[in-house]
């Protein structure tokens, strides 16, 4: 067969050649002859060069021979610049096919979550070690950074925590109120809200807010610092990034969450109050029930959870940020992974708490 290259042999004219004629070239067998006719070519570009190389590559692979018509020495020039043998590895860059079977994906996700947990725990180790070195030389903790993180993670989160806490109280009250009303005991909604918020919901919702607002910000900040080689700069100044960057953030997160959680609890109680007030329960009665239901144990349990969750969110954010790869894309992934990691860890630890408290019967 003959493959004739047109006079103006640029992308626009090469594209149809490539689409229609190259499949035919791909079917040529050993012993056959392809006439590559470049006699009339006046102008050509990289796509024409690529076509010439592709023909040679196919010839080498399939064993047919190529005859030139090369009056303008276009082919000779191209072969002088490019050696077809260099481009023989046809499929070298194909990515491994992604296995998208659901079972496999679930398995992969489980492995990822497990690795995440192990990573965060390992990172906890690093933070504790650097925390100990901080006990030896307290001056090395960046107090200003810690205060700044506390302000951003704590003070700045108050409006959103207030709103969500209030709404959660409202929802809890509506949900339980409507069924309890059937038995005429809607006043016990107050007890339920009080216990539920103090023991469980307060810490849980604020931890989720913290993961979304602050954990992701930690990961993005540290990830960007890594891209800019700022982390390398710290290391060479013998300021361990874990001590210098992670410790202030982790401490700040663990410090603010109990406060945020108590704040959310009171907003939730207020939300419940609004609902019960609409159900004609007197304010005095509501608050009496609420405060009777509060026990030292419940408050302590809530605070312990909050402290733990805060620690987990801080650790997850910083660990993903410091372990991010060095690209813009990787920073985004680190932020996502830190939030997912935080949520998984929070759920797992909440489960552990429930089991422990059940066994200890508190």
């Amino acid at each position: 067969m003959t493959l004739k290259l047109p006079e103006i042999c640029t992308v626009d004219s090469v594209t149809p050649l490539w689409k229609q004629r190259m499949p035919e070239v791909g079917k040529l067998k050993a012993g056959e002859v392809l006439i590559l006719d470049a006699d009339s070519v006046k102008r050509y570009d990289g796509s024409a060069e690529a076509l010439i190389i592709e023909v040679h590559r196919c010839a080498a692979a399939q064993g047919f021979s190529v005859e030139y018509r090369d009056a303008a020495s276009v082919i000779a020039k191209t072969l002088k610049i490019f050696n077809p043998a260099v481009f023989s590895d046809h499929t070298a860059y194909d990515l491994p096919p992604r296995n998208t079977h659901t079972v496999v994906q679930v398995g992969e996700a489980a492995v990822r979550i497990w690795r995440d947990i192990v990573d965060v725990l390992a990172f906890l180790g690093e933070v504790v070690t650097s925390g100990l070195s901080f006990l030896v030389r307290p001056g090395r903790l960046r107090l200003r950074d810690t205060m700044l993180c506390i302000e951003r993670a704590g003070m700045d989160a108050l409006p959103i925590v207030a709103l969500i806490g209030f709404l959660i109280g409202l929802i809890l009250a509506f949900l339980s109120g409507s069924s309890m009303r059937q038995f005429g005991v809607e006043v016990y909604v107050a007890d339920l809200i009080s216990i539920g918020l103090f023991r469980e919901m307060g810490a849980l919702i604020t931890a989720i807010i913290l993961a979304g607002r602050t954990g992701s910000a930690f990961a993005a900040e540290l990830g960007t610092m890594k891209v800019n080689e700022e982390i390398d700069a710290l290391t060479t100044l013998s300021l361990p990034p874990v001590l210098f960057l992670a410790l202030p953030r982790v401490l700040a997160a663990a410090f603010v969450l109990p406060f945020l959680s108590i704040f959310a609890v009171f907003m939730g109680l207020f939300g419940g109050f609004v609902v019960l007030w609409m159900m004609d329960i007197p304010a005095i009665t509501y608050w009496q029930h609420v405060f009777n239901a509060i026990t030292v144990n419940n408050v302590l349990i809530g605070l312990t959870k909050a402290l733990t969750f805060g620690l987990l969110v801080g650790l997850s954010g910083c660990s993903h940020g410091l372990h991010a790869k060095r690209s813009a894309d990787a920073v985004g992934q680190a932020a996502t992974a830190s939030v997912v990691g935080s949520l998984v860890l929070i759920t797992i630890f909440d489960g552990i708490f429930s089991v422990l408290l059940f066994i200890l019967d508190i």
Partner: protein
Amino acid sequence: MNDTVIEVKDLVAGYEGRVILKDISFAVRKGETFIVLGGSGCGKSTLLKHMIGLHPLLAGEVRILGHRIQGGGVAEREAAMRSFGVTYQSGALFGNMTLLENVCLPLESFTDLPSDARRLIAEMKLELVGLKPFANYFPTDVSGGMKKRAAIARAMALDPQVLLLDEPSAGLDPVTSAELDRLILRLRDTHGISFVIVTHELASIFAIGDRCIMLDAETRTIIAEGNPTELRDTSPLEKVRTFFNPAARQG
């Protein structure tokens, strides 16, 4: 006049009405290496970015292969945009793509070629700059000099007749920088590409520069134009002579 690839006439460049450069006129001829010189902050990148239509011109006209970059409608602007390649001062390779994918991107965007053709073209461009073995590396995993070369390969993906390079040798050692110079000369000879290069490297300027213009922050315009060797020896301006001959400054 038919061998002019870029023509800049009475250009005023700046940002939000703040004039950085004025009265800029010059022409780049086919197959020549045209150098833009000047101290840091005098507006070299500004000139380049205005020439390629990233910022609106405050006044004047830029033609690339005869197509106006501004003032001639969408089709003319697109024709102009397709006829040059550019590399940026900071490299600007996409970090989440391999070098090969980086070079493939303009082909995907501007042509209708089948994917194996696009990949082969991209591989060939990488081969031209000596990076074929690193095709599936990510930009973060290769050296500074390799990043500059990969950026040139990406700029060449659509076979432009003009390449504009913003400080290609910044941050490179003299040996790598000389290699880059040889690459530029080779591409000029094999592919007939014209170059507009912003650089400070005296060695580069004398090695590859056919003509140059020198910008000046005080007067905000071109203070010298011509062949680098001639400017060094015969420029009436003290400033220009000392730029080209720093040894004389010390002596």
